[in-house]
């Protein structure tokens, strides 16, 4: 009996393709932003606002740019395809200026408009990633500078997408978003770290002592210190400037990290001071936690147990006996692969025969 291709998968594919092609334009502007490259977490806005994005003093001092890319700006409410767009920037201040309103975009006699057009784009249809990147610099946002006077202050930028040169109609609610930043000079509370022991990879664990949103932690190991009190690590003090963290853990609020004791040059039996700091969203670093002790100790696992069981007292000879060449010579090691090649050939032949039978 001749086999026929069932139409269901093709129909599903066709329906999916049609649906994809005819998908409606998004009803919401989306954007990506990246503040201070070090943060390295470009976020995508699922809402039309981003409020009080924290900027640390270090970021403000460095005046690193905050980049923002507007994407997926939809067609206007009437469905008319717009070929040219303006991106408006509202004024600074705690309230900002709403560039949705046409009058804020319109120059007043003898004065300038409250909102300014930061960027224009043309090319037809939706704004895509080809939209020029907007760049803000912290010192541009904080008129008072980066000192404590600006702490907690925030600046609103109301960005709106309008038809090019349009200063007569209000911008639709779905065509704008607000963005504000806040200078955050308050570091998070220091964590509490526990003693750690292990062989090569030693797991250091700690408890976070803050309800603030954390973004990472740094583990400092003083390999020249000792656990009797001689160390550059001091509980409650800032991390020593000359000491690089042994590990920087990311991904939210970590509570443990693995330290490569062998790479740090620790000998078996050596105990060194370890302390941890945590980072908040603005990358403010806490002071050091309590100073705990990291000890490199010999650790045994299955292989050590097995070698002992087999009467092998020397780990190297045990490994030599069973590891790598455990099936003897190279030719013997190749046997499994050769057999699999033969099996593969047999299956290929079977498949051809099966195909010919249809």
């Amino acid at each position, binding site marked *: *009996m001749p*086999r026929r291709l*069932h139409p269901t998968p093709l129909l599903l594919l066709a329906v999916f393709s049609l649906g994809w092609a005819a998908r409606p334009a998004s009803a919401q502007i989306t954007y990506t932003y990246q503040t201070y490259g070090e943060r390295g977490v470009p976020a995508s806005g699922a809402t039309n606002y981003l409020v009080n994005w924290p900027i640390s003093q270090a970021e403000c001092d460095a005046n690193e740019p905050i980049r923002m890319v507007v994407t997926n700006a939809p067609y206007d409410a009437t469905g008319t395809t717009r070929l040219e767009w303006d991106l408006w920037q509202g004024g600074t201040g705690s309230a900002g200026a709403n560039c949705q309103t046409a009058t804020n975009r319109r120059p007043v006699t003898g004065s300038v408009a409250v909102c300014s057009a930061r960027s224009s784009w043309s090319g037809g249809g939706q704004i895509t990633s080809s939209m020029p990147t907007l760049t803000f610099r912290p010192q541009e946002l904080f008129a008072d500078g980066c000192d404590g006077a600006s702490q907690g202050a925030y600046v609103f930028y109301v960005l709106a997408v309008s038809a090019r040169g349009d200063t007569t109609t209000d911008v639709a609610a779905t065509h704008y978003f607000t963005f504000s930043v806040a200078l955050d000079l308050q570091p998070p509370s220091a964590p509490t770290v526990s003693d750690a*022991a*292990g*062989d*090569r*990879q*030693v*797991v250091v664990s700690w408890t976070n002592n803050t309800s603030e949103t954390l973004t990472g932690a740094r583990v400092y190991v003083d390999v020249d210190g000792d656990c009797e009190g001689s160390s550059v690590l001091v509980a409650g003090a800032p991390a020593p400037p000359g000491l690089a963290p042994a590990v920087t853990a990311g991904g939210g609020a970590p509570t443990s990290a*693995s330290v490569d004791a062998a790479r740090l040059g620790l000998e078996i039996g050596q105990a060194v001071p370890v302390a941890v700091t945590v980072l908040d969203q603005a990358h403010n670093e806490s002071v050091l936690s309590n100073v705990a002790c990291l000890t490199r*100790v*010999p*650790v*045994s*696992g*299955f*292989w*050590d*147990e*097995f070698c*002992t*069981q087999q009467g092998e007292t020397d*780990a190297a000879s*045990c*490994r030599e*006996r*069973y*590891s*790598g*060449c*455990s*099936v*003897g010579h190279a030719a013997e*090691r190749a*046997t*499994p692969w050769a*057999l*699999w090649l033969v*099996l593969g050939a*047999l*299956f290929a032949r*079977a498949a051809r*025969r*099966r195909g010919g*039978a*249809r």
Partner: protein
Amino acid sequence: MRRSIALGIALAVLALVSLPRGARADEGEQERHERSPVLGEWSTEPLFVPSPESLTLELRVGAYRPDLGPAFERAFHGDLGPLVALELDYHLVRIPYLGPLQFGARVGWVEWTGDAVSSTGQTNVGSTGMSLVPLSALVSLRIDALSRYLSFPLIFTPKLGLDFGYFQTGTSGVTQADGWSIGVDWGLQLALELDFLEPRAARRLDEEWGINHSEIFFELFGSTMGSFSDRQLPLGSSLAWAAGLGLTF
């Protein structure tokens, strides 16, 4: 444990998906042996011609613990894996009144983990683990005569073959040893063919996808990997089990 549960759920879902679906009344499907619209007579066309059946595919999950002695028990505390595997068998020749003689290949994966121990007896100092990739070449006799001739949906399959196991073991994130072991593999499988649940849907599965039969199975098996040489790690197991879903096509 969570891995085992997840695998069990995945297997159950696979079994459910493969179950023949009930016939839908609105399709108005008719059997081919009905009156021919052209001739007005009973057609001599066969009622149902199954597609060629030459392969068996098995999705397996089970428990496997190698006979490595007390060292394994101390390090892994009776960890049973699980072992997940995929097996494909080719029907070489059908032996009359018994079933097809098959040759096939199986590839699997299993990992055991436990706590490393420091010289002072501390256990929170890292982990130790071992993983095994068993590769098998098998000959088996799929005795499906009960199902084919008596409509009794049980299939027995004895298996015999060669095992090639690649192991890797380490502690505290560092690989300590790896290598190969060879041995003989045996197995005895009992399968329940699912066609009897929805015969018409099973036929449709064959017509549309070429899947002749689906079945669930339970298998007892063992291996002598590593027992032929004192330079091979004894990775064999005197008795292990696997269950899963089988498809013939």
